[in-house]
């Protein structure tokens, strides 16, 4: 996996909450034993008409979003199944980042992304960025006002910058471990294998006590 520091690209919006991984990549595409080729299945139940042509109703099929690389959507994106195929499909389609709002409710804060999806995203270098509801709402508005709106994501600075006549930017929080992982494009398994001695010791200890 390659590291990523900054990315600039066109922003597309998908105005739906709770987009589940069954929608991101429907089950029929999960029969493949390969790691590539999932872009054709991305959002396929929404994206295609029964005859296989692109549905004009679906947001991402609009001409203005065709070359988008940043997807801005609503809360709880990626809920449901653990299928990493969902992240593969998003990445292989051409998206570098997904932005969604955390939601503050009386009972507590609801994160923007489902847990397993967010973890899978990091492993594939897909940025998942949480903003506030107001900020995401503002981006939805800007995309409507400025067709072809571009955004720069600056990971080291933890900022997204919207390129309009007068630039606007929002700061985002990200766990330090996740940030480092993304910037350096680390191979998790290689790093963990450097701790083999600790794993050996743990196994020896539990075997003795168990």
């Amino acid at each position, binding site marked *: 996996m390659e590291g990523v520091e900054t990315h600039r690209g066109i922003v597309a919006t998908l105005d739906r909450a709770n987009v589940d991984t069954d929608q991101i990549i429907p089950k029929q595409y999960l029969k493949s*034993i390969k790691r590539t080729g999932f872009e054709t299945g991305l959002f396929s139940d929404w994206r295609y008409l029964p005859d296989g042509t692109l549905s004009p109703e679906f947001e991402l099929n609009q001409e203005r979003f065709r070359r988008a690389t940043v997807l801005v959507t609503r809360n709880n994106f990626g809920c449901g199944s653990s299928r990493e195929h969902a992240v593969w499909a998003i990445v292989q389609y051409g998206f570098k980042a997904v932005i969604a709002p955390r939601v503050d409710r009386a009972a507590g804060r609801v994160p923007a992304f489902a847990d397993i999806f967010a973890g899978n995203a990091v492993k594939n270098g897909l940025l998942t960025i949480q903003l506030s509801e107001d900020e995401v709402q503002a981006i939805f508005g800007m995309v409507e006002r400025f067709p072809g709106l571009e955004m720069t994501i600056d990971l080291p600075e933890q900022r997204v910058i919207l390129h309009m006549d007068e630039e606007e930017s929002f700061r985002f929080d990200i766990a330090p*471990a996740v940030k480092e992982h993304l910037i350096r494009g680390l191979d998790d398994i290689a790093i963990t294998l450097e701790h083999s001695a600790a794993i050996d010791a743990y196994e020896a200890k539990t075997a003795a006590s168990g």
Partner: protein
Amino acid sequence: MAKTLFEKLWDAHVVEVLPDGTSLLYIDRHLVHEVTSPQAFEGLRMADRSVRQPGKTFATMDHNVPTDDRDNIADPVSKAQIEALVENCSDSGVTLYGLDSDKQGIVHVMGPEQGLTLPGMTIVCGDSHTSTHGAFGTLAFGIGTSEVEHVLATQTLRQTKADTCKVEFTGKLQKGVTAKDMILKLIGMIGTAGGTGYVLEYAGEAIRALSMEERMTVCNMTIEGGARAGMIAPDETTIEYFTAREREFAPKGEALERAIAYWRSLPSDPDATFDREITVEVDKIVPQVTWGTSPGMVTDVTACVPGPDALPDFNRVDVERALEYMGLTAGTPITDIKIDTVFLGSCTNSRIEDLRRAAALIEGRKVAEGVRMLVVPGSEPVRKQAESEGLDAIFKASGAEWRFAGCSMCLAMNPDQLQPGERCASTSNRNFEGRQGKGGRTHLVSPEMAVAAAVEGHFVDVRTFV
């Protein structure tokens, strides 16, 4: 310091705290199925890495297997996926319960059944419903394929410690109200993202009163509330699961005695604190039915389909889209909704107790004219047990189809699918758009509610179904 069950399990499995603040967590049991593993095995091969502990990983086939004619898999792509698992397991020395095994079944049914799931363990699987195993007092959660590869190679995962949330179910269930209704009610209360970032511990007298299989139903749907793991402290019911009958991979004799002593030390300390606490009054729960396209879109069987105005926690556009997809109008009584298909199965509700309760209810009755009912046992041992008790004959006499074990119409990867517009009362766990077949409409219910709907052809309050 007082610890919760989760904190005890976490602390017992930390191999090392890493400089970036995450922890390397040891995985005791890794379960594998055909859909989320081929790319992981391929990754190992490409990096010239091997499986560190083949004896701690067990595989079965469930997601993509036919439940009628198991000898002829018509779809060549499905067949290739099944063959890939056979080859990967054989190459790496991982035990596989394939289609020719009498232990094959849905991975979350098979694990506990064979004693692969034991209190105190960490258990992972490339499937979000791995939370099921939390019923035994394990830390069990679903992972993606990259993590499957990581566990195969290292028997560990890099994890950030979750926050803790106690869900106390107080009171007693009414007759006809089930574990399924308890968890659907909770998801309706907290929403499908309400548990994100937490590990839930289910507690309270209503949880203590549940059998192990009912507890699995509750823990199974934890992920539908956003939490990766849900757990229940081991108690006498848990212990009896291992003492009442021998399970192949569970300890026996003195080893079992030692294990039980350890299991008894696992429950949260009385003065342990949680980051969050939720109380659910069980007495007030009535049978639940989902009306929308997310498990949080759920209501009482006695209610009407809600409209956007009654749902402040949902975006108006999402509710309107869900109602349109489901072909429903706000204000329609739930009991007026007619169904075409009934699916009794899935890792949520396909165990022997589910089948016994459903059979007892359908015995002497007929599936309504024009309604198709599919009964898919969770594993081959469940199927054989059911057949030895004559349950298959009861289902078949009522007009239902009796199948071999698998995930089947829960995710409809195999040929068991809904047609566009077809409406299903399903005992599974997800009512997402297209989940049971493109254009299919899913209503999640308990096995009892599913049977009542099958007989009447529309939803009925099973409490009045006599």
